[in-house]
C-alpha cells in the first residue's frame, strides 16, 4: 500500500477506505498500517465501532485520546469532539494515524468523528490519516478538508500464491502449483483473508513431522 506510505511522508489529510469484510485481509492491512505509522513516529490509535456494544461518541473519542496519550474526563459527545479537535489543531502536533474498524455504517456519529480526525492547523505539516475498514469499503464519499480514496485492489494471481507457498512455507514447486490451482478454483484470489486460512489449514500436514 504505497499510497499510505506516501500520505504519511507527505503529511496528507486523507481517508483510506478498505474492505473490512472477514473474507478479506483488512485485519492484516490494519496491522501493517499501524506499524508503518508507529515507525514514522505518528500518534497511532485504533478503534472498533461495533453495533453489538454500546459505544457512544464520547467513549470512542476517549479510547482514541487514551491511545494518543491524553485522557478525557466524563464529557458529552460534543465536548469530547471539542477536546479532540483542540489536540489535533495544536501547533507542532505532528502526525496522527487512526484505524477505524466499522461494523455498521449506521453508527450515528461516524461522519462527525471522521471529519474531526482530519482537523489540522493551517500551515502544519503533520499527516492526518484515517483508515476506515468497512463492509465492501463502503463509507462517506467526502470528508471536509480531506481526500477520500478507495485503493484499487488487484486479485491475487496463481504466481503470487505459488511463490508465497514456496518461499514462506517451503513447499515444493509441484505442491505449490497444485495448491495454488485449488485456491484459485475456490476463488480465494479475491478473498485474501480466507486464502490465508486455507494456506494455514493446508500447512497442518507438517504438524506430525
Amino acid at each position, binding site marked *: 500500500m504505497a499510497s499510505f506510505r506516501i500520505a504519511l511522508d507527505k503529511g496528507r489529510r486523507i481517508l483510506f477506505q478498505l474492505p*473490512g*469484510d*472477514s*473474507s*478479506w*485481509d*483488512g*485485519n*492484516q492491512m490494519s496491522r501493517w498500517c499501524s506499524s508503518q505509522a508507529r515507525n514514522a513516529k505518528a500518534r497511532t*490509535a*485504533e*478503534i*472498533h465501532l*461495533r*453495533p*453489538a*456494544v*454500546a*459505544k*457512544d*461518541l*464520547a*467513549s470512542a*473519542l*476517549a*479510547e482514541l485520546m*487514551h*491511545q494518543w496519550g491524553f*485522557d*478525557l*474526563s*466524563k*464529557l*458529552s*459527545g460534543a465536548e*469530547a469532539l471539542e477536546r479532540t479537535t483542540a489536540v489535533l489543531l495544536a501547533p507542532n502536533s505532528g502526525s496522527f494515524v487512526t484505524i477505524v*474498524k466499522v*461494523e*455498521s455504517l*449506521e453508527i*450515528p456519529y461516524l461522519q462527525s468523528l471522521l471529519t474531526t480526525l482530519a482537523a489540522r492547523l493551517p500551515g502544519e505539516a503533520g499527516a492526518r490519516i484515517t483508515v476506515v475498514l468497512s*463492509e465492501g469499503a463502503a463509507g462517506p464519499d467526502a470528508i471536509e478538508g480531506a481526500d477520500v480514496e478507495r485503493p484499487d485492489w488487484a486479485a491475487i494471481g496463481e504466481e503470487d500464491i505459488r511463490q508465497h507457498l514456496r518461499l514462506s512455507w517451503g513447499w515444493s514447486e509441484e505442491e505449490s502449483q497444485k495448491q495454488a490451482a*485449488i485456491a484459485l*478454483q*475456490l*476463488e*480465494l484470489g479475491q*478473498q*485474501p*483473508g*480466507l486464502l*490465508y*486460512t*486455507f494456506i*494455514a*489449514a493446508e500447512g*497442518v500436514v507438517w504438524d506430525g513431522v
Partner: protein
Amino acid sequence: MEYNSEMLNQPASRTADGFLGLLADEGARKALLACSAALSLDDDVARRAIALVAGSNGSADALLDRVKSLSCVWREWDGTWYVAEDVRAPLVDRLSGQIPAGMIDRLHELLAEAADRRLVGISPNGQLFDYRVRACHLEAGYHQIQVTGSEETGAERFLAAWQPANREGKDATAAAVDHLAPELERQGRPLPDPVLFLRGMAARTRKDWRRAEKYFRTVWERGRPGEIQAISAHLFGTLTRDQSAAERAFHQSLEWYPEPIHRGQVWHSLGNLLAKERSRWNEAEGAYNESLSLLRDPGDQGQVLHSLGNLLARERSHFSEAENAYRNSLALDPSPQGRGQVWHSLANLLAKMGSRWNEAEDAYNQGLSLLRDPRDQGQVYASWANALLRQAKGRGDLDRAANLAEIARECAPDNPKTCAVAAKVLAEVFRIKGDIRQELEALEEYLDNSRKQYRHRYAKRAEQRIREIKMRMKDVPT
C-alpha cells in the same frame, strides 16, 4: 478436507460456513463456535470457553491459536478480541445445531460470569469507566438472557446499562440491544419487556416511528405495571393515531408509575390529546394544571405553559389568559429554542388581537433571533406572512407578505407545513393582484404540500380553485 467455491462466497452466512469449512477438524470448528458466542474475549476466557465446548483434553491453547489466526478475529487496542459481526452472528445461529442445549447454557453462564468479573475489576477512569461499566452490563445481560430460566435477569441487566447513562450512552445501549434482539428472536425466545422497550427507544432515536409504536404498544398491551411499562404506555400514546387507545394508555401509564416527573409528563401529553377535541378543552386545561403541579423543572413547566397558552389562544374570550401563560413560559424556559417557539406562538396571538400588530411583529423578530434551525425560522416567517396578509391595508403589506412567504420557503424547502402556508399566502396575494397564472402556480404548490400532510380537506379546496382558474384561463386569450 472438502472445499467448494459456493460455500466460500458471500453473503455473510456463507462466509461463516466458509471459516468453519476451512478449519480442518471438529475441535477447531467447535472452538470457533464457542468464541463466536462471546461479544468480547480475552485469552483466558476464550481458553475456558473452548475447553468447555470442544472438550479439548489440554489442546485448548492450540485451538485458541487456530481461532485467533483467522482473519475474522479482530484485536482491540486494550488486548481484548472478538469474532467480527459478519461471521459471529451467523455462527451463533448454528450453535444450537452443533452443541447440546445444556452446554450452550453453561457456555453463556461462563461468559456472563467473565463479564461480571471484568465489571468488578474496572477502575474509575473518566469517560472510559462509564463505557466499560455499560459494556459489562450489556454483555452479562446478553449471555444471561440466553441461559434457560435467567431471561428476566438478563433483560434487567440491559436496563442496568441503560438507566444510569447520559442521553448518548442511553441511545448507544438501546441501539446495541436492538442489534442483538433479532439474534435472540431467531433462537425462538420471547423477548422480555426491557428488550422490547429498548428496541422502541432505539427506533424512536432513529425516528422510525412505526417500529417505535409497535414495540411500545406490545409492552403496554402486556399490561404489567412498572417503570418501563409506564414509559412505554406513555410513548405509545404519543405515537398512535388511535386517540381512544392513546387516552387509555396515558391513564394506565399514570397508574403504573407514581414518580412525579413521569406523571407530570403524562398529564402534559394527555392535555395535548384532549385539546384536539373542542368538547374536552376544559379537561385539557385541567390536565395541564395537573402537570404543572407535578413538574419542578422550570424548562418542563415552561413547555406545559406553552401548551396551555396554545389551548387558551383558541378562544377570543381567553386571549388574555393565553398571553399570561406564554409570558410565564418565557420567564421559566431557559432554552433559547423553547423560548423562540413561545415568542412565535405569542406573536400569532398578538396578531389576532389586531390593535397589537406592532407588538406582534416585535415578537416574531424575538422568535427569529432565538431560533437557530432554518426550518424553525421558516415556520415563523410563514406565520408572519400569513398574519400580515390577514390584516393587510394596502399593496405595500401585500408585497411584504409575499416576500416573507418566499423567505419561509427558502428556509424550509422540505417542510410541507411551512411550504403549504407560504404557498397559500402567495396564492392569495396573486389573487388580490389579479395575476391568475402566478396564483395557479402557487395553488399547485399548496395542493402538493397539503397532500404531503394528508390534509385532504385543504387539498380538495385547492383542487376546486385550480379548476375554476383553469376554466377562466380557457376564456382568456393568451
